[in-house]
């Protein structure tokens, strides 16, 4: 899950916060496939829309990701669904996802979401992150 949306509304639209998201796959092959799919959507400028859809599908009861289900989620969210399917089938982001996941693990990230505000690890709750952001906006701790 992600805790970012309410913070985006509060801080991003006013230009006070830049959000960076890096999907990793510490929860198995399905995570990896979903992260690859998000990268494929990103090729078409649809990373955020697709990422939202993946999270929403879980909230709606989707219990497993497969190539088919991930391709269905792309419908209406990517300009070229065939290109998306080809990208996903190619597995061209697999190595990149695995590498960034391995690096995240090496840095001690063992649970998600893991969040950092100006480089400082902060618990991934809306309240904690909002507080940390406000501290930074006030000039830092």
């Amino acid at each position, binding site marked *: 899950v992600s805790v970012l949306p309410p913070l*985006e509304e509060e801080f991003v639209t006013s*230009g006070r916060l*830049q959000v*960076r998201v890096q999907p990793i796959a510490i929860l198995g092959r399905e995570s990896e496939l979903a992260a690859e799919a998000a*990268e494929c959507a990103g090729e078409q400028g649809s990373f955020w829309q697709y990422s939202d859809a993946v999270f929403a599908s879980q909230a709606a009861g989707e219990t497993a990701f497969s190539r088919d289900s991930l391709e269905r989620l792309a419908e209406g969210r990517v300009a070229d669904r065939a290109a998306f399917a080809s990208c996903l089938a190619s597995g061209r982001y697999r190595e990149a996802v695995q590498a*960034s996941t391995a690096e995240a693990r090496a840095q001690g990230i063992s649970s998600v979401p893991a*969040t950092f505000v100006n480089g400082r690890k902060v618990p991934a709750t809306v309240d904690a*992150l909002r507080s940390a952001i406000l501290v930074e906006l006030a000039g830092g701790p």
Partner: protein
Amino acid sequence: VGRRASRAKAQEPRGGRGAGWRLYALAAGGAAAALAVLIALAETGVDRGGGGGTPLPAADATASATDRSHVLGDAAAPVTLLEYSDYR
């Protein structure tokens, strides 16, 4: 679910519907600037102290070869929030 859907709305003031590629182009420039700041902080060993958090290791993933983060928001924003997430 609704909160995720709001993300698209948040982008609209910066370009509106169909402006994804422009956002990515802007984001790429912003990411480079943010990386420079993060690298500088890591190299100078700055410990921002306090707050109960843990400084990100010097080998910051955002400044690594494996970085493939996606960026939303203004490159000039004073605060950067990095999230590692998993879709499961």
